[in-house]
């Protein structure tokens, strides 16, 4: 038996956890650069705020004056996600963190009434992390995912949905559109509909050859999963990454080469830090810059260049490569809105290769020291001077809340009663 627990409006709930005055208020959390709404509480949804709404366009609407809105505070959300995960591990033997706010549960070995156990898990997560959740469960991961959707969608179920019973499952299958199935996205729906598959039941009953033609092996496995045959195991280990990217939209357009160079240096340093944290080397670097796609009248230029190099995770070597790539494609006269650095061709750090590498022991010691300082005193405490000291391109985060759980200077305050 598998369960899927999903945190309701996770980012908003994290803000509410530390600000009780938000309890009954509509709350919205915005994407990087304070661009669009990416999390909304029930109250905010009821005001008509949609996922992806551009906040600067809607925020002055009279009916939205009471909405509490926040820049995304990923340091806080990551730590709260860790807490949810650890609470779950106190209740079930295995947990798969599927996304920052959704976790699959191995409910296999649990005794007693499943509904009661899931209710307990939910209550425990809410008491300890202050995050409300919904839980769905069934014999396979795809069914658990669907059960979770139903639990969220139907308030009368009070956050719990049990799809372990086949007859009940089929009643839902007949009434739900195929697009609600895990992994069947918006682009696939029209193609399935064209083939006469509109409901989940029609998908489950469809000819295997047809499903294979439309969705390859994934579709066939989904079909089996929805029939109750488990083909997807719980994965506790994240597969090794194939690539690593660090990119940002700028808070204001970048027109100056030096500003862009500091941005590229920062992105490269950050991605290199992630490489080292995962003990990986890269052998292929991509740098891209682009102007605003919504303002093509100002000129559109979006080049990307790449280079193959000796496997390394050394910040100094990688920054040198990245800046060389930037120089190749840089053109004055454009208003750049976004840039980024990607590392591909990743492999575990292999001492042998460093025999031929440039940097050598000295830079390795220097990067190690830099990582230690940044881990201890916070991200970006120590960086290359070429990453700049004050950056015009820094993303807008005008309503960033405190990092209540990860920075001692920003913890919650309590007045004595």
């Amino acid at each position, binding site marked *: 038996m598998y369960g899927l627990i999903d945190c309701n409006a996770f980012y908003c709930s994290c803000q509410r956890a530390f600000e*009780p*005055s938000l*309890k009954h208020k509509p709350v919205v959390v915005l994407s990087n650069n304070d661009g669009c709404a990416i999390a909304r509480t029930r109250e905010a949804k009821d005001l008509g705020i949609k996922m992806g709404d551009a906040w600067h366009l809607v925020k002055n609407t009279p009916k939205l004056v009471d909405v509490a809105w926040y820049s995304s505070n990923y340091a806080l959300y990551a730590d709260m996600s*860790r*807490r*949810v*995960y*650890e*609470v779950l591990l106190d209740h079930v033997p295995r947990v798969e963190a599927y996304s920052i706010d959704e976790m699959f549960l191995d409910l296999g070995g649990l005794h007693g009434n499943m509904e009661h156990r899931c209710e307990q898990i939910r209550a*425990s997560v809410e*008491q*300890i*992390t*202050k995050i409300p959740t919904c839980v769905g469960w069934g014999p396979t991961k795809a069914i658990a995912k669907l059960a979770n959707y139903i639990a969220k969608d139907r308030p009368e179920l009070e956050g719990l949905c049990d799809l372990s019973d086949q007859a009940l499952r089929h009643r839902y299958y007949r009434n739900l559109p195929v697009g609600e199935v895990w992994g069947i996205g918006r682009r696939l729906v029209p193609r399935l509909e064209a083939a006469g598959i509109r409901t989940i039941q029609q998908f489950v009953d469809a000819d295997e050859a047809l499903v294979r033609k439309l969705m390859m092996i994934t579709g066939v496995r989904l079909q089996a999963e929805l029939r109750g045959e488990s083909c997807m195991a719980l994965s506790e280990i994240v597969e090794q990454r194939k690539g690593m990217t660090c990119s940002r939209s700028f808070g204001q357009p970048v027109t100056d080469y030096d500003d862009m160079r500091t941005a590229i240096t920062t992105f490269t340093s950050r991605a290199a830090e992630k490489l080292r944290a995962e003990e990986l080397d890269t052998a292929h670097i991509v740098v891209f810059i682009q102007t605003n796609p919504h303002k093509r009248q100002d000129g559109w230029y979006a080049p990307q260049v790449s280079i193959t190099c000796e496997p390394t995770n050394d910040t100094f070597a990688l920054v040198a490569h990245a800046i060389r790539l930037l120089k190749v494609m840089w053109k004055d006269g454009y208003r750049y809105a976004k840039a980024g650095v990607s590392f591909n061709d990743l492999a575990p750090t292999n001492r042998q290769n460093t025999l031929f590498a440039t940097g050598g022991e000295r830079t390795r*010691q220097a990067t*190690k*020291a830099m990582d230690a300082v940044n881990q201890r005193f916070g991200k970006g405490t120590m960086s290359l001077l070429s990453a700049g000291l004050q950056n015009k391109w820094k993303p807008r985060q005008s309503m960033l809340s405190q990092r*209540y*759980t990860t920075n*001692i200077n920003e*913890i*919650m*305050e*309590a*007045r*004595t*009663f």
Partner: protein
Amino acid sequence: MARQYAGDRTTGFASPAADSIEGSIDLSEILSLRKPSRYPVRVQGLSFVSRGVLSGDILIADTAGNPVSGSLVIACAGGQIILAELQNRNGKWFLVSGDDATQPLRVDPMRDVEIWGNITGLVRTEV
């Protein structure tokens, strides 16, 4: 970067303590800060001086477990976060002020008076 020296790897005479290195004391372990239920909270105000809590102290709140009469708690009341003493009076829970300057508040989630976490420890970084 200089290698860490912990009393073990000496250059002349071999350290007799080399097999007994224990490292320095880790307060986050002692305070169980890795537990998902532990949160640090900063105190503002002096009404719990009698309980040894000063303004600026860092309290460790634990959101797991059950309420205990007489203990200090972090609570939410009317949208505010407060430090109060929890008391059970005839089966009902009350938040009691540290200096009796304010009337006790009945714990009632329907009226937005809720217990947030129990205090389990205190850190004072400057004495």
